[in-house]
């Protein structure tokens, strides 16, 4: 199973549903993910607002959130919120990497952040 599919299944249902709705996943990923998601009832996530969406990203799996940012699933305001919310987190390697990716996205850079 692809890494991103595994992470999507493990994430909060509202978050996965929102990202699916925003078109984050390719056809192959969707095909691998949808049977598992519907089986576990993960597609029932309700509508989430932009702040709720960014909070779910900030509080969840940092690598999954980084993928969402790199695949341009967030608008500028949402990126700003995510940047703020990440400051409330206890820093660790993955979160710092995510913060760098968000800062780069805010500056209009789209590629992955090089590790130090």
């Amino acid at each position, binding site marked *: 199973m692809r890494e991103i599919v595994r992470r999507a299944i493990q994430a909060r249902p509202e978050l996965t549903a929102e990202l699916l709705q925003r078109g984050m996943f390719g056809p192959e990923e969707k095909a691998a993910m949808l049977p598992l998601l519907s089986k576990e009832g993960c597609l029932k996530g309700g509508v989430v*607002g932009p702040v709720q969406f960014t909070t779910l990203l900030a509080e969840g799996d940092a690598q999954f959130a980084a993928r969402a940012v790199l695949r341009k699933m967030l608008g500028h305001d949402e990126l700003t919120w995510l940047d*703020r919310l990440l*400051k*409330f987190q*206890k820093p660790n390697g993955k979160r710092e990497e995510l913060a*760098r990716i968000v*800062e*780069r996205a805010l500056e209009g850079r789209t590629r992955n952040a090089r590790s130090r």
Partner: protein
Amino acid sequence: MPVVAEVPAPEKVLINSVVKNLTALAARAWAKRWIITFTAPTGTGKTTAIDYAERTLPFDHLVIRCKQITTRYTMLQAMGLAPGEKWTNHGRNWMRASELYARVVERVRERPYLLVIDEADRLRLDVFEILRDLWDDSRLPMLLVGNEVLTEKINRQHERLFRRIRVRFDQRPLREGDMCKVLEFMGYELVDEEFALLWKLVGGSPGFAEALLENANEIAASQGVKRGIEALEGAVRYFPTVRKC
């Protein structure tokens, strides 16, 4: 480049203890040519206070907002180059950095200013080295602002800079009354029950409270009702770290 504040101060800033302390320390660092650290927990309002100070300080100052990607070179670029100016010398970054450094020192000696660094806790060690060198070579006064990590980082990892810091100011979180005023000022109308829950969860951190309240507003809006204690309790579910408290 450093500037004296000319623009009028923003109207929408509540002059609370954080703003007062930070501006007073900035004035002191400038007058005495000291290095001062200002630490406070995340979400207390440091950045808001810096925004206010940037617009109101009556002497030359330069504010640098730190990022994860701030390096020694980007730091010197911010201090030595005018906006839009490019540094055209060829060579590796460290060679370019040494030339830029000389230029920064020369400028500070000609016209000193106060350097204010926001989120200084995120600075890398080599940047702290540069700051120490700048102080040694040009007596550049500095105000380093950050969370608790800043003191710990400098104490543990950078003794040479640590010895040069004259004042270490630790801002206490806002008191209940101040916190209430800040939230009111931010436009949140809270009933006692909501405020009590917020205070229990986040203490004197308006930034964190704002994040919770905005989530609660969205939850309430999606249900077509006005925000209440249920929505706020619902918002707490989105913050597993707070929930554990």
